């Protein structure tokens, strides 16, 4: 398989995934369908990548990938842990009976706002986007550092 064919194939897989996602949302299907479709799509992509004949992966590109992945992980786990600690605090929130309730019974005391599960989904989506942006950013940085855009003198 040629490199361009592989990219075209990847695009088709992405379109199919998008269609499944849309269909699942529209018809209120359980999320298991898109989840398993995503895992299968990634598996197919990896298998298809192995069939590409004109894609040279040398030690420099491996180093760029390795460095970018490591730096992404180093930044991401800190952000992820900080947000997860916040989420755990929300989970462990126990409503209290403040003294104010007895001293001023007329005044309504609202419980602390707890992050709803839907918001956790958005938060996860945000984290995923952050991870992708971090990886792309670090990849560009290291590709530049290891001479990806060096001009040729020949």
């Amino acid at each position: 398989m040629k490199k361009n064919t592989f990219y075209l194939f990847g695009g088709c897989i992405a379109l199919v995934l998008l269609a499944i996602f849309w269909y699942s949302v529209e018809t209120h299907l359980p999320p298991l369908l898109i989840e398993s479709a995503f895992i299968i799509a990634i598996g197919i992509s990896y298998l298809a990548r192995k069939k590409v004949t004109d894609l040279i992966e040398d030690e420099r590109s491996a180093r760029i990938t390795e460095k970018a992945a490591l730096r992404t992980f180093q930044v991401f786990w800190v952000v992820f842990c900080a947000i997860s600690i916040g989420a755990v605090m929300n989970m462990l929130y126990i409503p209290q009976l403040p003294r104010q309730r007895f001293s001023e019974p007329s005044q309504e005391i609202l419980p602390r706002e707890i992050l709803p599960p839907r918001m956790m989904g958005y938060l996860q989506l945000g984290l995923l986007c952050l991870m992708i942006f971090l990886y792309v950013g670090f990849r560009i940085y290291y590709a530049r550092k290891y001479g990806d855009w060096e001009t040729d003198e020949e």
Partner: protein
Amino acid sequence: MKNKIKVFRAMHDLTQEDLAQIVGVTRQTILAIEKGKYVPSLDLAFKIARHFKVNIEEVFTYSEEGRTIDVD
């Protein structure tokens, strides 16, 4: 790490693409090594030196903090 790949290439009348194909890397990697942007692995350094039929020290020179130290 400094190197004389460009000199050896010229001596053997090889383009970056030719050398890249011989040692199994991309042309961009050879370019990055020549420009000192990327330090090759020992494996690749040996492959390049062996292709030019010279010792590795003749192609690559170790330099530290702006100071050049010849390995040999």
